[in-house]
C-alpha cells in the first residue's frame, strides 16, 4: 500500500478542481483511501490522514468517521500526533457526542505530562470544548495547575478555570484559594487571565463580589496595577502604538466597573484613576479609543461624581466628531444608553448627533435616528422635526416606517400648535405615505376631527395633496375621509390659514370618483372614497350626480363596495328623510391612549413594531336596518352584542317610529362611518368592562329607584359607578311581573339626550315570569361627561296573554347621585 499523499499535496490537488463536481470526486476518492487506512489501524500515517480530513471538513464535507482516530492520536506519545489529535477533537467532537468522554482520561494524563506544551494542549482543549462531565472530573487538575509557578501553564489554567466555572458554577469555590495570589504576578499573561477569572466569579456570584470588595480589598489592588501600567515607561513586550498592554487595561477597567457598581466606597476609590485614564490616554489610534470607550462605560455604570460623568459624555461627544466611523458608531450606541439618565449632558451634543443623520453608513444613521428621537423635547421640537423630516425624505426605505412612527409620536407629544401638527403629519404622509403604520390613519382622522378650527385648512391641504399624487394609500384614505366630512368648507373657500382655493363641487367629485376607478387604490381606499361621496350628498347640491355614482357601484364586483352602494342607494330611495341626520358631521372623538409604538428604539433593525393585525374596514352605516340604528344611537360598537333578540324581523315602520319618537331628545350624529379599529372606540365602553367588576361595592350609596310601573310590569333601576371612569353610571334594570301570566319576548330599549352616551348589554332573558317568580335583569352603562341631569326615554315591548304590548315612558326621577 503506497503512502497516503501528503496534506499539502492534497490541498494543491483539490484546488486545481475546476468545478464543484470535480472537487467532490477528488474528495470522495481521498476519503475512501483514508477510511481504508483507518481500518488498517495504520499508526504511521494516522496523523497525516486526520490532518487531510480536517481540511476536507473545512471545505464542508462530512468527517465524523475521523472522530475516534482523533482520540487515538491524542493517546499517542508523539507530540505531532497529539497536536493534530487535539485540533481534530476541537473541530470534530463536541459535548453532544458521548465519544468525547473518552478523551477525559487522556486529558487527565496530559495535564500531568512532563512537557509543558503537552499540558498546554490539554488545558486548551479542555478550556475550549470541555463538557460539564469532563470539567467535573478534571477540575482538580486544573486547580493544581493554577498554583504552579510556571506562568505559561498558570495563565492557561486560569482560563480553563473560567470555562469550568461557566459549565459547572458550583465548582467556583474550589478555585478561590488559588486565585488569591494571582494578582501579585508580574507576568502580564497571568495577570490578564486572572482578571478574567475574577470577573467571571464576580459576575456569577454576588457573594464572591462582596468578598472581593470587602475582604480581599480588590479595588485598591486593581487601581495600583492600572496605575503602574499607565505610569511605567515604554515596555516593548506589551506596547501597542505607545500604550502599554491595552488588553489588560481594558479588562481591569471592566472588573472595576463590576466592583464599583452600586457601591459608593469602591466608586470613590477609583475616581482618580478613571479621571487619569480618561484624560491621559492617547486618542490618535483605535487602541487608545478602545481604552477610552471602556473607561466611559465604567464611569457611566458606577456611582461616579457628576464631574466625572460630564467628562465621560464629553469624551463621547468628541468621539462623534472623530473621522473613524467605528468610533462614531460606538459613541452613538453609548449615548443612546445614557440618554435617559444624563439627558441634559447628551442634549449638549444634539447638533453633532443630528449631523450624523447625514452619515453614509447605515448603522450610524440608524443609531443617530434613534438618539435624535430620544432627544426631542418641547424646546427643540421645531428644529429637530425639520431635520428629521429632511431625513425621512432622503433615507432608505428600511428606515421610513420607524422614522414616520417616531415623527408621529414626537409630534403628538410636543406639537407647539395644531396647525404645525397637521402640517407635520401632511409632510410625512406625502413623503413617506406608503410606509406609515396601518393604525396611523384612524389616529390622524381623530386628530383632525379634534382640531375644529383647522378643518378648512386641513381639507384644503389634503385636497391639494390628492391632486398631486394618489398612490400613497394612507394619505388618500385620510384625504377622502376629510373631503367627505368637510367638503362644504372646501367648496365655500373658507380657509383662514392660507389662500383659499377655488374648487367646484364637480371638481371634488371628479377627484373622488377618480379614486374609485384608479387601479392604484386598494379596496379599503375605494370604500373610503365611496363613503365620502355619499356624505357629500348632504353637503353638496349635486345630489343627482352622487346618486348616479352610488347606483353604479351597486353592481360592483367588490362585495364590500357593492354592499355599501346598495345600502346608500336604499338610503336615497326609502330613507331619504333619515339621510341628513345619518350623514351629519362627526362629533369630537374621545381621545384614546396612544396605541402606537412607545418604543422605537431597537437595537436590531429588523424588529417589527406591533401593528394591530385586524385591518377593519370602516364601519358601514346600515340605515336600512333600524335596529342597528338603535345600536348606533347607543354608541354601539360591533364588539358588544347589544340587543340580539329582536330585530331583523321588525317592519320598517317601527324603526322610523323609534327615531321620530326620540326626535326631541335628538340623536347624536355619530352614524357616519367610523374607522372601526378598536383604538378609536370610546374607551369607556371597553375599559371598565375588561378590568373592573361591574358591581362595585364602593358605590352602593346610590339608592335604587322605580323607573316604570304599569300593568303589572315593574322596572327598577339600581346603580353602581364604574371605577375607572367616574363619569360612567352603571344601571341595572330589574323587570318583574305581578300578573298571573308570563310576559314573553320582553324587550327593553332606551335612549338618552345628546350629551350622553348609552350602552345596553344583553338581558338575562326575555321572559319575565309571572307572579314575581323571577326577574329579567339588564345592564345599562351611561357616559355623562358633562354631568348633566340624567333623563331617559324607555320603550317596552312584550307579549302578554297572547297579545303584543308596547309602551313608552320617560324616566326623569333619577337620584342626583347617579349623575353628579
Amino acid at each position, binding site marked *: 500500500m503506497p503512502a497516503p499523499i501528503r496534506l*499539502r499535496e492534497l*490541498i*494543491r490537488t483539490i*484546488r486545481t478542481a475546476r468545478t464543484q463536481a470535480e472537487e467532490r470526486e477528488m474528495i470522495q476518492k481521498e476519503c475512501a483511501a483514508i477510511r481504508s487506512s483507518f481500518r488498517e489501524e495504520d499508526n504511521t*500515517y494516522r496523523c*497525516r490522514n486526520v*490532518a487531510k480530513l480536517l481540511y476536507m471538513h*473545512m*471545505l*464542508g464535507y462530512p468527517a465524523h468517521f475521523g472522530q475516534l482516530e482523533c482520540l487515538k492520536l491524542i493517546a499517542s506519545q*508523539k*507530540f*505531532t500526533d497529539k*497536536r*493534530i489529535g487535539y*485540533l481534530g477533537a476541537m473541530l470534530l467532537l*463536541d459535548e*453532544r457526542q458521548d465519544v468525547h468522554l473518552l478523551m477525559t482520561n487522556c486529558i487527565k494524563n496530559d495535564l500531568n505530562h512532563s*512537557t509543558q*506544551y503537552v499540558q*498546554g494542549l490539554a*488545558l486548551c482543549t479542555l*478550556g*475550549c*470544548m470541555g*463538557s460539564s462531565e469532563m470539567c467535573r472530573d478534571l477540575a482538580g487538575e486544573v486547580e493544581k495547575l493554577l498554583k504552579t509557578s510556571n506562568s*505559561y501553564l498558570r*495563565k*492557561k489554567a486560569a*482560563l*480553563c478555570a473560567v*470555562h469550568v466555572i461557566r459549565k459547572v458554577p458550583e465548582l467556583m469555590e474550589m478555585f478561590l484559594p488559588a486565585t488569591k495570589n494571582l494578582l501579585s504576578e508580574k507576568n*502580564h*499573561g497571568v495577570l*490578564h*487571565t486572572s482578571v478574567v477569572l475574577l470577573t467571571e466569579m464576580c459576575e456569577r456570584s454576588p457573594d464572591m463580589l462582596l468578598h472581593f470588595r470587602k475582604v480581599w480589598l480588590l479595588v485598591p489592588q486593581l487601581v495600583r496595577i492600572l496605575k503602574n501600567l499607565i505610569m511605567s515607561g515604554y515596555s516593548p*513586550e*506589551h506596547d*501597542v502604538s505607545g500604550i502599554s498592554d*491595552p*488588553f489588560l487595561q*481594558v479588562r481591569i477597567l*471592566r472588573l472595576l466597573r463590576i466592583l464599583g457598581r452600586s457601591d459608593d466606597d469602591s466608586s470613590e476609590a477609583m475616581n482618580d484613576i478613571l479621571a487619569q485614564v480618561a484624560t491621559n490616554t492617547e486618542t490618535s489610534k*483605535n487602541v487608545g479609543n*478602545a481604552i477610552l*470607550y*471602556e473607561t466611559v*462605560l465604567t464611569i457611566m455604570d458606577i456611582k461616579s461624581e457628576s464631574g466625572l460623568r460630564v467628562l465621560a459624555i464629553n469624551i463621547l461627544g468628541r468621539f462623534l466628531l472623530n473621522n473613524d*466611523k*467605528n*468610533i*462614531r458608531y*460606538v459613541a452613538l450606541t453609548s449615548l443612546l444608553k445614557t440618554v435617559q439618565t444624563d439627558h441634559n449632558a447628551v442634549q449638549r451634543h444634539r447638533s453633532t448627533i443630528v449631523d450624523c443623520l447625514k452619515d*453614509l*453608513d*447605515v*448603522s*450610524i444613521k440608524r443609531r443617530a435616528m434613534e438618539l435624535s428621537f430620544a432627544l426631542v423635547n418641547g424646546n427643540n421640537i421645531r428644529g429637530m422635526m425639520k431635520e428629521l423630516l429632511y431625513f425621512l425624505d432622503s433615507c432608505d426605505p428600511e428606515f421610513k416606517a420607524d422614522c414616520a412612527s417616531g415623527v408621529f409620536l414626537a409630534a403628538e407629544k410636543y406639537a407647539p400648535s395644531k396647525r404645525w401638527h397637521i402640517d407635520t403629519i401632511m409632510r410625512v404622509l406625502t413623503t413617506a405615505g406608503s410606509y406609515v403604520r396601518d393604525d396611523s390613519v384612524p389616529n390622524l382622522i381623530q386628530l383632525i376631527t379634534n382640531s375644529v378650527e383647522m378643518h378648512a385648512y386641513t381639507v384644503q391641504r389634503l385636497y391639494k395633496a390628492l391632486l398631486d399624487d394618489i398612490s400613497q394609500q394612507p394619505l388618500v384614505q385620510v384625504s377622502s375621509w376629510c373631503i367627505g366630512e368637510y367638503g362644504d368648507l372646501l367648496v365655500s373657500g373658507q380657509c383662514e390659514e392660507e389662500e383659499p382655493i377655488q374648487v367646484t363641487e364637480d371638481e371634488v367629485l371628479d377627484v373622488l370618483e377618480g379614486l374609485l376607478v384608479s387601479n392604484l387604490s386598494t379596496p379599503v381606499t375605494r370604500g373610503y372614497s365611496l363613503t365620502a361621496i355619499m356624505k357629500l350628498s348632504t353637503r353638496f347640491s349635486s345630489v343627482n350626480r352622487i346618486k348616479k355614482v352610488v347606483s353604479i357601484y351597486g353592481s360592483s364586483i367588490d362585495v364590500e363596495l357593492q354592499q355599501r352602494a346598495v345600502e346608500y342607494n336604499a338610503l336615497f330611495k326609502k330613507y331619504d328623510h333619515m339621510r341628513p341626520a345619518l350623514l351629519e358631521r362627526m362629533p369630537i372623538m374621545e381621545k384614546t391612549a396612544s396605541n402606537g409604538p412607545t418604543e422605537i428604539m431597537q*437595537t*436590531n433593525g429588523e424588529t417589527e413594531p406591533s401593528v394591530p393585525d385586524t385591518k377593519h374596514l370602516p364601519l358601514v352605516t346600515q340605515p336600512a336596518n333600524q335596529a342597528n340604528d338603535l345600536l348606533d344611537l347607543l354608541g354601539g360598537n360591533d364588539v358588544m352584542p347589544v340587543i340580539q333578540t329582536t330585530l331583523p324581523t321588525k317592519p320598517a315602520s317601527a324603526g322610523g317610529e323609534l327615531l321620530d319618537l326620540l326626535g326631541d331628545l335628538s340623536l347624536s350624529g355619530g352614524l357616519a362611518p367610523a374607522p372601526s379599529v378598536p383604538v378609536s372606540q370610546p374607551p369607556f365602553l371597553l375599559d371598565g368592562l375588561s378590568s373592573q367588576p361591574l358591581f362595585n361595592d364602593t358605590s352602593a350609596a346610590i339608592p335604587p329607584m322605580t323607573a316604570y310601573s304599569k300593568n303589572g310590569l315593574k322596572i327598577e333601576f339600581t346603580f353602581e359607578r364604574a371605577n375607572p371612569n367616574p363619569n360612567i353610571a352603571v344601571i341595572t334594570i330589574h323587570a318583574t311581573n305581578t300578573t298571573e301570566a308570563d310576559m314573553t319576548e320582553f324587550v327593553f330599549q332606551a335612549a338618552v339626550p345628546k350629551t350622553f352616551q348609552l350602552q345596553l348589554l344583553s338581558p338575562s332573558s326575555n321572559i319575565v315570569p309571572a307572579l314575581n317568580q323571577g326577574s329579567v335583569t339588564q345592564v345599562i352603562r351611561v357616559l355623562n361627561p358633562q354631568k348633566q341631569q340624567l333623563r331617559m326615554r324607555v320603550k317596552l315591548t312584550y307579549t302578554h296573554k297572547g297579545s303584543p304590548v308596547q309602551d313608552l315612558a320617560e324616566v326623569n326621577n333619577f337620584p342626583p347621585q347617579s349623575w353628579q
Partner: protein
Amino acid sequence: MTMHFLLLFSRQGKLRLQKWFTPIPEREKKKIVRDMTTMVLGRKPRSCNFLHWKDLKIVYKKYASLYFCCGLDAEENELLALEVLHRYVELLDKYFGNVCELDIIFNFEKAYFILDEFLLGGEVQETSKQVVSRSIEASDMLQEVSERPCSR
C-alpha cells in the same frame, strides 16, 4: 473579550478557518457561517466594522483578501475586538513572514496552533506578541524532534 466564534473567509466566501468557543450543532455552525459570509460580504466598502446579528455583536475586518469575523456578546468592547483581530494578524504575519491567504490555506493547522496560543475559551490568554511567538517556535521544535523519521 468573550468570543463566541472566529471565522476567516475569502472574498468568494470560502472558509479558511473556523474556531467555535461554544458548543453548537454542526448544522447550526454551517448556517452561521453562511449568514456571516452573506452579511459581511454584502457590506458597502466604507461601512463601519460592526454589525448586529441575533443577540450578538459581529466585528469584522478585511485584511487583503481575507475577512476576519468574530461574534461577541452584546456588552463587549467592539473597539478592543478590532485590536484582538489585529493582534492575531500580526502573529500570523510574524510566523509566516508577510502572511497572505495562501499561507493560511496551505498551513491551516499552524494558523489554528497560533490561535490556540493567543486565545483560549474565547478570551485572550497572552498579551505579549513575543511570548506567543516563542511558544509556537518551541512547540514546532518539539514537533520536529518527535517527528523523525517520517514527515508529513
